């Protein structure tokens, strides 16, 4: 435990002594804020128009009108800002050679990987925490607060974020060049996104359904709509477990090959 904590502390310190954490968090909150603002403006315009038509007005609320689209758009944002957080985690140690000492310390690879992954996950959590004023503002304007779906949306975003991160850690272990690591991360994440589009899942073909289930984005929908489904939870947890497990295998095989 202490080993994980030490690795974690160093990584966190690194993120904050270099500009990485600040830049990523500023860019993220700025764009998130813009999405949120646009959705809110659109929603209020829509509400005015729908005042004439009470039947429709019943069907629209802040969750559907604002948070769902903002949280969904957030996928793109995560795609953009998470690889820069994950790319350095292992690639940098290999490139600079610090991995040589690290590997000769009495510490297990699994502790190294978990410590690093937890530190990067903390950055993701902090990014999301920085957006928390948004729902407060929205509910402040609209009065009726509906926290359930917002919280489940945040949970979904966090799980998706750290899944992106785990994939990034794996890719970082495969390359010692950070540029390569970030580009490959973008490519693979997009590929996981597009899995659901290859064959229309509603077409009824089983393969379409399987690919749709494998898509990393699709599992966010239920969370955003306020539904926490075990299936989605299991997907993200498994995704993280498998990528981190593969990371360990990659490190081990690199060792054997020298």
């Amino acid at each position, binding site marked *: 435990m202490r080993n994980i904590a030490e*690795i974690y502390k*160093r990584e966190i*310190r690194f993120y904050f002594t*270099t500009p990485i954490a600040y830049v990523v968090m500023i860019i993220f909150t700025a764009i998130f804020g813009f999405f949120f603002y646009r959705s809110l403006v659109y929603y209020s315009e829509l509400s005015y128009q729908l005042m004439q038509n009470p039947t429709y007005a019943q069907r629209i609320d802040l969750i559907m009108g604002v948070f769902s689209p903002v949280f969904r758009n957030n996928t793109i944002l995560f795609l953009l800002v998470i690889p820069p957080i994950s790319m350095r985690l292992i690639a940098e140690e290999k490139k*600079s050679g610090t991995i*040589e000492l690290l590997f000769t*310390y009495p510490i297990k690879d699994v502790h190294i990987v978990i410590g690093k992954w937890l530190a990067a996950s903390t950055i993701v959590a902090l990014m999301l925490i920085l957006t928390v004023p948004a729902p407060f503002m929205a509910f402040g304007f609209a009065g009726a607060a509906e926290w359930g779906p917002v919280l489940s949306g945040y949970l979904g975003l966090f799980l998706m974020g750290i899944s992106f991160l785990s994939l990034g850690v794996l890719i970082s272990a495969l390359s010692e060049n950070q540029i390569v690591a970030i580009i490959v991360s973008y490519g693979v994440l997009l590929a996981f996104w597009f899995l659901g589009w290859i064959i229309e899942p509603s077409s009824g073909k089983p393969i379409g359904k399987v690919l749709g289930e494998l898509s990393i984005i699709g599992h966010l929908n239920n969370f955003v709509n306020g539904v926490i489904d075990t299936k989605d939870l299991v997907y993200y947890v498994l995704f993280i477990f498998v990528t981190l497990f593969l990371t360990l295998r990659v490190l081990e095989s690199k060792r*054997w090959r020298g």
Partner: protein
Amino acid sequence: MIKIEGVTKRYGQTVAVRNISFDVERGEILGFLGPNGAGKTTTMRVITGYFPPTNGNVWVSGHSVLDEPIEAKRQIGYVPENPAMYYEMKTTDYLKYVGAIKGVPRAKIKERLDHTVERCALKSVVNKRVGELSRGFKQRVALGQALINDPPVLVLDEPTTGLDPKQIYEIRQLIKSMAGERTVILSTHILPEVSMTCSKVVIINEGEIVAVDTTQNIGKSLVHSHQVELVAKGPSRKIVESISAIDGVGRVDTDGDMYTVETEKDKDLRSQIAKRIVEEGFELLELRSRSMSLEDVFLKLVTEEEGGERA
């Protein structure tokens, strides 16, 4: 203390070291000598557990690097060649971090840190970032991170490369001062370093061990001949001829008026050579016996090896 048994390391098709075995006793300073690319770093990386050997095994204080890697690693402080450290960290933070990773108890960290700072003379740079330090200080920080958990074994890969003469002297003194207290394995391609600091030498070439002995013995036991150097005036061809005629003389090399005469190992032919030169009517200006330096031994071993393989 350290037992290396039949270690082979392959990278793909290339064999970096082949079937290496040797022991290091407690408190010994072992010089690991070889030209660049001989397999010194590979051997050290196997000992320190950076990577496992393809074949064979290494025991550090009885812990196998294959079966109990964590325990084995706990015994060792390692300074790699060109040690890469976390340059954005301050010296104290870095040393504390390494101490914690190496499992120094929380209550003892302060004490170990003070001791290490004192031992490696790092007091003036404790608050500086490691990346800002000069080469000599970086090397001392690297030594500090190796010593922070007070390990019984130190493995140093070319610890003096890139340092200036004063720094080299200081690092060597530091290493020497650890004799008896710690077991040290030190790799180098600088020969005087071995004769100055080490009690035992392992010579490695092209991935194989060529010789293992104490520093004093290695010259004696491996040298098959003795050399006499002399300076004489006269026609050099005639001088060579007359010296060569003496019983027990091997090769005679000339360089201007200087002659290097190889004689049989246990024979002292100095007086005979002197007599012969004077008798022949040449002028003898200087004559002295030259014992082979470690450098000669090393060169001889390494070139013999190469010659043998080509044949």
